[in-house]
């Protein structure tokens, strides 16, 4: 028997979840009060799970490294959240959202999970509105929708360019309500540094109080990791500075398999890098592609200002290559197309590593609509533009301001310069249908798991998945495990497994401080990022990946010999925190390259140069690679062992992905 059992319920795809939900074992309210659940992370998945489990009666402890749970990086999501409401009457349905997500993920996601996601998507919007999340509305008082990449319906709900913020604050307020009632104990400025496993089951964590530096032992009947993605392995990404893989990586080393680590998403519309000092990249929401047109000059090395380049000398390359979806192709396709143009010498801006995202056309279109509404006869071009500018300002004002602040250029007057950047990681801890990892009692939710986005995530689906997992999946599926734990008494944190785990953490922290090397943590992080971006980024090949693996091993040895971490253990020490995170990123980086090297095909965000069609599109190999690569940690020497979960497509006919 394979070690991987995805525990997908029997039956018709569209009925699996309903049936399972109605038959999953329950825990009676009196017993819930005696069961403790640890939630690591307070983003959409973590806050939603912690609040909902507490509402159900479980005793919850929630941890975050930030100073408040409201600051989790879900807050930075801009564009929107998908839901199959079909409010626009444009033909949307659960099946269509399911289909778009599977296709968008290049047929590397699990059908049953994705269908469940599409089913509960509508509940999320209802829940958010009930909590007072101010989603955008039309004058009639009903909710508004916008389009996103990879779909031909309007199903994306939004709150200006701050949808993640508003949804997270909704979940945060639900969480704080439980904190106020004493059902959730919140541990801010705490970082989880180890999972405690007793008799094969996850039974708690070791966390460091980041202010006092003290290590703490916490028991839980189950542990939920909602700790986000690992895009910061690239150093430069759109992730927050603190976003890290540490919680997931500790779990991996304690037996949780890591699924599809090489599946990373490069977002096509970010503000280009301006210099070596750069610490992070800023996203310009995908929703801008609704109203912007992407182009480069038709002539190589054209140095004219964008507004001086006449229409007929512009190459709207997405519209040219993909007429059916145009500027709204999925992210992986748009990113590769931008890279292709820049590599071929058509890039713009000082670095020539950028393309234009131009709003002039749509500003004029909106302007004419506004002029009509106001009954203006034959308005001149300037009036039209001014009216259109106001419309665009209302839709995307904060994004345009952000762009201007960072680049010093006014995007209302001149096109934005954009280039792809690391944004999201589809890979993550392998989980079954219940969201449980290969360690019983240890769960992974949201971006921290691998499950729903295959090899490429569609825009506005991350918020959907995080909240689906937290509000509507785990509260049911955790019953199948906890119903068997009602006789398990709280295990004392004096248990030797806790002592052992704490000792390991303590020794590791001591080690960082005792190396007393010459280079800062950031120095190593930047070097790791460069290796990953050059050799395991938007395009990968066998030789590069092999080089990357050996370079990362060398880097790891150098890090453990020469890193300089100042300060002490028993105090607030951000450098020490960073050192632990970067040490884990280095190990993860190697696994990502191993995974990318193993997958001899191109699919979604994983583009192996050896495997492309004559037109430069990804060449998938369904015969050999229609599986989830789940890696088991085998120790320092034996490294990683591959396990395969075959992906079976029953409801969808697997086909070459075309957006032409």
């Amino acid at each position: 028997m394979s070690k991987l059992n995805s525990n997908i319920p029997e039956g018709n795809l569209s009925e699996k979840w309903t049936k399972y939900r109605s038959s999953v074992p329950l825990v009676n309210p009196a017993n819930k009060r005696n069961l403790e659940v640890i939630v690591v992370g307070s983003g959409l998945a973590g806050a939603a799970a912690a609040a909902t489990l507490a509402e159900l009666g479980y005793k919850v402890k929630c941890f975050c490294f930030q100073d408040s749970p409201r600051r989790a990086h879900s807050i930075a999501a801009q564009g929107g959240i998908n839901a199959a409401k079909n409010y626009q009457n444009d033909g949307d349905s659960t099946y269509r959202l399911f289909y778009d997500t599977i296709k968008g993920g290049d047929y590397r996601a699990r059908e049953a999970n994705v269908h469940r996601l599409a089913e509960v998507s509508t509940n999320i919007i209802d829940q958010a509105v009930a909590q007072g999340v101010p989603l955008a509305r039309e004058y009639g008082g009903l909710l508004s929708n916008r389009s996103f990449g990879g779909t031909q319906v309007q199903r994306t709900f939004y709150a200006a360019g701050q949808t993640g913020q508003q949804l997270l604050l909704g979940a945060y307020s639900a969480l704080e309500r439980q904190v106020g009632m004493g059902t959730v104990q919140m541990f801010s400025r705490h970082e989880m540094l180890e999972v405690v496993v007793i008799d094969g089951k996850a039974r708690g964590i070791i966390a460091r109080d980041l202010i006092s530096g003290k290590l703490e032992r916490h028991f839980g009947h189950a542990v939920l990791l909602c700790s986000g993605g690992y895009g910061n392995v690239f150093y430069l990404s759109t992730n927050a500075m603190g976003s890290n893989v540490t919680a997931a990586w500790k779990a991996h080393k304690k037996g949780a398999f890591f699924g599809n680590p090489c599946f990373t998403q490069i977002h096509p519309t970010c503000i280009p890098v301006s210099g070596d000092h750069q610490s992070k990249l800023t996203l310009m929401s995908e929703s801008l592609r609704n109203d912007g047109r992407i182009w480069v000059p038709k002539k190589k090395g054209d140095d004219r200002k964008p507004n001086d380049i006449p229409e007929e000398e512009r190459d709207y390359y997405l519209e040219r290559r993909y007429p059916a979806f145009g500027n709204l192709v999925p992210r992986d396709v748009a990113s590769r197309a931008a890279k292709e143009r820049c590599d071929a010498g058509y890039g713009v801006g000082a670095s020539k590593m950028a393309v234009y995202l131009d709003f002039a056309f749509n500003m004029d279109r909106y302007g004419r609509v506004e002029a009509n509404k106001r009954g203006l006869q034959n308005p001149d071009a300037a009036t039209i533009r001014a009216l259109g500018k106001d419309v665009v300002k209302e839709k995307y004002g904060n994004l345009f301001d952000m762009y201007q602040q960072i680049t010093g250029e006014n995007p209302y007057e001149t096109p934005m310069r954009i280039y792809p950047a690391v944004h999201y990681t589809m890979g993550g801890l392998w989980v079954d249908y219940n969201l449980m990892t290969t360690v019983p009692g240890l769960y992974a939710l949201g971006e921290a798991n691998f499950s729903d986005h295959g090899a490429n995530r569609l825009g506005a689906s991350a918020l959907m998945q995080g909240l689906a997992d937290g509000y509507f999946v785990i509260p049911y599926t955790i019953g199948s495990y906890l119903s068997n734990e009602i006789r398990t008494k709280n295990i004392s944190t004096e248990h030797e497994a806790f002592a052992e785990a704490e000792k390991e953490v303590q020794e590791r922290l001591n080690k960082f401080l005792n190396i007393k090397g010459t280079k800062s943590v950031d120095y190593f992080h930047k070097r790791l990022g460069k290796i990953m971006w050059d050799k395991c980024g938007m395009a990968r090949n066998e030789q590069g990946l092999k080089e990357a693996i050996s370079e990362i091993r060398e880097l790891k040895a150098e890090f453990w010999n020469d890193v300089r971490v100042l300060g002490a253990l028993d105090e607030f020490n951000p450098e020490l925190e960073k050192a632990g995170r970067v040490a884990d990123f280095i190990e993860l980086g190697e696994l990502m390259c191993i995974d990318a090297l193993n997958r001899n095909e191109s699919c979604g965000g994983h583009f192996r140069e050896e495997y492309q069609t004559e037109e430069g599109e990804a060449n998938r190999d369904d015969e050999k690679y229609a599986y989830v690569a789940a890696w088991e940690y085998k120790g320092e020497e034996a490294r990683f062992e591959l396990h395969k979960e075959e992906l079976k497509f029953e409801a969808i006919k697997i086909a070459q992905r075309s957006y032409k």
Partner: protein
Amino acid sequence: MSGNMNLTLKIWRQKNGNVQGELVTYPVKNISPDMSFLEMFDVLNEQLISEGKEPIAFDHDCREGICGMCSMFINGRAHGPKEGVTTCQLHMRSFKDGDTIVVEPWRATAFPVVKDLVVDRSAFDRVIAAGGFISANTGNSQDANALPISKFNADTAFDAAACIGCGACVATCKNASAMLFVSAKVSQLALLPQGQPERYRRVQSMVAQMDSEGFGNCTNTGACEAECPKGISISNIARMNRDYFAAKICKEEEVN
């Protein structure tokens, strides 16, 4: 790529909350105008580490102006000289070569210093926990479009909800008042039909918690609105006061 600005920084250093702090002077060289203020701090910290000195602790996370974690009081102004931005979005092009820049933590009784420029803002979480929510358990909701909300109210609620909880309002207020922060949440929920059942209970609970945390009162100087990186309007305070008085005068029995 490095730039050509040379600056003198005077930065608040304080080992922890139990000891005295002081301003320490650091020169930094070759700063690029394209750097963000925090990237300039990264450069300084790299320099300190290479000299074997402990780097400066400061709060930051998303570096795109939305998480609300960054919190520096720069030349006497919360988030620095530029309006409508957080410290992480402030760029060095807002300064000149040769400038002296003084950087301090948020100062307020309710925000004790943790270390250097890092303060403890957990009082804000406790204010929200006291009532900054709508009591709607997961799964109880009706269809989202069953309750039409006028665009004006939805937009005004959104404007209030845009608060990032950074605490600039408190830091900048001579009374260290948290009224802008508290009123933004009170307003958001009071403007929406979903928020009505708990409207008067909420405002009283939140104000009571705010007072118990040691925040000062509002004397209408408007400094909070001027320094808020998200442009939260002081009219929210008026709305909160109105609800608070209404609750105290007419609705008190509803809240015990």
